[in-house]
């Protein structure tokens, strides 16, 4: 098991480095001269050159990359042109809303998704199965931003139950969480169902019944306990995507989170912030995949005892 964990971690490091380099390169590919941008349109050529040297933009690309990476480890992510502040100080306050939203939507989506999936598998071909699967396929197909707008219109504007935008109170998180979790709930419901159907056909489930075990126990302790390994994997991978899902939700609900910041920064061509956010999102995605891999190994005795 220890070996497995170490191997996984080691294999993720080169990927992280390659990706950070690619993002760095991408940002440099964007047309426009950052030195000119900072200096202003009417600056002299000399002034631009000075700023270029100050920013280290005259050095070769590889050197710039190393300087940037070194900076990351010291908490220096560059300077945000739009906010006139270090990137780190722009990003940090944006974490909280996004993370709270992610956790809230993950919790309800996992519970409901898994529940629907089990019910559908157990009641296969019956009305409950169809109902659950209609909910699930709708959840996958609905555009999140539209769902958000509809929820605002109905629950906030018409009924006045929730605030329409921003994060003024605990209630503010309800509609965004529903919007954000909808797709994951649907994916998990479908996945849990197919995994459960597969496991319910397995020989050991028949053994459990032959032991005289009651049906709910057979379903939970045998079929679901085996499905759980795969369900955790899929659910974990969704968290990685969720932080990005925040882009749409935060835009619709005007929430000052990371996703919203990304959209705003792209619109304002604040590329140091875009670069930092892209790095963060993709590294976070890799790290969560890594954690999921390790948890998978831990849940699966075949991997754990090798």
């Amino acid at each position, binding site marked *: 098991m220890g070996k497995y964990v170490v191997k996984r971690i080691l294999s993720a490091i080169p990927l992280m480095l390659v990706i950070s380099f690619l993002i760095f390169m991408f940002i440099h*590919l964007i047309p426009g001269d950052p030195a000119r941008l900072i200096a202003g349109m009417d600056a002299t050529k000399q002034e631009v050159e000075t700023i270029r040297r100050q920013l280290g933009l005259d050095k070769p690309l590889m050197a710039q990359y190393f300087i940037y990476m070194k900076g990351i480890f010291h908490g220096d992510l560059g300077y945000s042109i739009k906010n006139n502040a270090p990137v780190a100080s722009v990003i940090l306050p944006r974490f909280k809303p996004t993370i709270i939203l992610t956790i809230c939507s993950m919790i309800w989506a996992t519970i409901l998704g898994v529940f629907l999936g089990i019910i559908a598998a157990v009641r296969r071909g019956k009305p409950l199965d169809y109902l659950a699967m209609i909910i699930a396929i709708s959840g996958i197909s609905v555009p999140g*931003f539209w769902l958000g707008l509809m929820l605002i219109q109905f629950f906030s504007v018409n009924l006045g139950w929730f605030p329409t935008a921003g994060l003024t109170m605990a209630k503010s998180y309800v509609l965004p969480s529903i919007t954000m979790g909808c797709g994951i709930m649907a994916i998990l419901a479908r996945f849990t169902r197919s995994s459960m159907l597969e496991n319910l056909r397995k020989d050991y489930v028949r053994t459990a019944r032959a032991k005289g075990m009651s049906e709910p126990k057979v379903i939970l302790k045998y079929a679901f306990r085996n499905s759980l390994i795969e369900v955790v994997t899929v659910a974990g991978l969704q968290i990685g995507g969720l932080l990005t899902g925040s882009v749409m939700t935060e835009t619709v609900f005007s929430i000052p989170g990371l996703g919203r910041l990304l*959209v705003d920064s792209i619109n304002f061509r604040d590329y140091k912030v875009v670069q930092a956010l892209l790095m963060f999102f993709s590294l976070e995605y890799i790290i969560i995949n890594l954690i999921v891999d390790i948890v998978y190994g831990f849940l699966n005795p075949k991997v754990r005892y090798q």
Partner: protein
Amino acid sequence: MSTVTQTADEVILSKPEGRFKQFWKKFLKRKAAVVSLIFILLMIGVAVFAPIFLKYQVQAADYNNMLAGPSMKHFWGTDEFGRDVFTRLMVGTRLSLFSALISVVIGTVIGVILGVLAGYYGGIFDSIVMRCCDILFAFPDILLAIAIVAILGPGIINVIIAVAVFTVPSFARIMRSATLEAKEEPYVEVARSIGCSPRRVLWKHVFPETVQSLIVNFTMRIGTAILASSSLSFLGFGANVTEPDWGAMLSQGRNYLNSAPHMVICPGLLIFLTVLAFNLLGDGLRDTLDPKIK
């Protein structure tokens, strides 16, 4: 030797017809998928022929009738310039549906070629393709599209490129593993052992076996692509807001959510139904093509 190859060919050639009839019979039993297919064909018809039968011009403004709700005159109401929403949505089918189709086709072709070749030849080529896929996978779908549009700038062409790029790795992976599986099939071994050239084995024997998973994923991916491109348009990274793109219209309508909710409801509903149709069709195809997965 040559006679043996011939019979093998005959078997392969005679297979599709019988298979197709069987498949069609099974497919017709899946009501949801059949309805979805009809809906999709209808949408494609609309996309092609819309300008012929529509009452209004796409850009025809009517300043006496701004933000009007649905009525007999304007089926789904009008927008902030008094333009007919129904007309714009129908014409928008071209932009939204076709841009999704084009991007998925491009992504699929590239992904399939890379995946099949990687699976069949293995070795360094395989490693390179798969590592590239790993890298692309390290960006969650929509983030990758946003990143690409951020670099290339907004616009419908760039959205198509972005969606195509994030379609590639999933197809490459699916086709690679399908090819690896098909390579182990006994009849492929047989074809190789009777001296078929690798290329012939690859396209005549291995590729047909992978078509099933290809069709299913292609269908599902179109739904994802429509969602992705309308999301990008909604964020303002996609089609120009003056164009009748579903996502762009929704984004515009958002400003009038209180006074003219139909401007948000209608485009959103259309996106939802179209994506739903592709997903249901994909589900139906998977159930008919692969009896193992239920």
